[in-house]
């Protein structure tokens, strides 16, 4: 139940977003995120987009490791 699913926003309409998670599409609530646009990536939990995803994990890892000492 408690699994976060990264998904791409396809369409936003009246507080709901149609998202595409590796091909699986469904409507989720977009009420927690302002100014969501098609093409944005979000983290979906139990039918609700809870956070925006900024960037990929490769860049993130490099930044953190470079900053380590």
């Amino acid at each position, binding site marked *: *139940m*408690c*699994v*976060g699913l990264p998904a791409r926003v396809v369409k936003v309409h009246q507080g709901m977003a149609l998202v595409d998670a590796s091909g699986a599409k469904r409507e*989720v*609530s977009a*009420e*927690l*995120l*302002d100014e969501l646009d098609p093409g944005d990536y979000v*983290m979906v*939990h*139990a*039918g*609700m987009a*809870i*956070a*925006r*995803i*900024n*960037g*990929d*994990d*490769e*860049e*993130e*890892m*490099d*930044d*953190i*490791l*470079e900053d*380590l*000492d």
Partner: protein
Amino acid sequence: MRTEYTQTALQIIRSYDGPPVRIMEVCGTHTHEIFRLGIRQILPSQVDVISGPGCPVCVTPVGYIDEAVWLALEKGVTICTFGDLVRVPGSTLSLAGARSRGAHVEIVYSPLDAYDYARQHRDEEIVFLSVGFETTTPPSCLAVRNARRDSVTNFSLLTANKTMPRAYEAMKDSADAFLYPGHVCAVMGTGDCEAMVQQGVSGVVAGFTAKELMTAFAVILKKIQKGEPFFKNCYPRVVTREGSRTAKELMADVMEPCDAEWRGLGCIPQSGLQLRPAYAAWDARKKYGIPLIEGRANPACRCGDILQGKCKPPQCPLFGTVCTPEQPVGACMVSHEGACSAYYTYGGNIR
């Protein structure tokens, strides 16, 4: 671009030669991903990973299942629930068992789906089993807020929502560093985790991919050698310092803190959430006058010790014999996110 000076996460992890370290993760998805990706095998032998109380199904007490079964069988309500709760044993029956005696149990992916079901079936009474941490609580709150707005009265929540910060405090002597749950932090921000440093508790927020988990372990093993408590957000592409203000406001509007029982850990004061009085009409306990039910777990089940890192699943006398994913006794075996389920599934990879 990686510079030639940057050590890779793998090098940092493999070259760790410091004192023994206990790292506790408190997220069911971390439990499974760490096993699935084989990260345990690359950790030096003095680094121990403990699966703490991070799976919402696993920490839900037996008495809660009994309440749901009572509602389904005595009151004839339709139970809408996440699928992993259905086979969790109650004192006498699981919801699956209740269903075989005629109970109506619907599996949903989201509390919002449960609310839609209620709107489409106005002649039924719908109770959604509202378990979960700060990641799953916002959609529950939204569902009940929408029900109040729309004056939909055949929908209510049986709450067992929990919040993580008190659990970190309760578990702080069981671990040397926490792998904080990335998506709880995405909602709540990192303030609670940063505050743990003042109590001498270290930890990093971790994401869920191989790169993110490796980075998180590398940061812990590097920083812990300095001997000072630390905090680092290792999942900045999703987690911000502030978290989601909208989600926090939504939760504060609909729910208020309460004492909560955690399976195996007992009652942790102010670690749960219940509906505010304004939402009493959508609170299943008030609506149906559920009697006080004291759940009885199988006394041989060691889920509680496992959640505290006091033993590993294979040390439980029931593990893999009496208790399997097909015939689970304890919640940690039922839920796919539970530690026992992970040990069972990835049996060849454990240590």
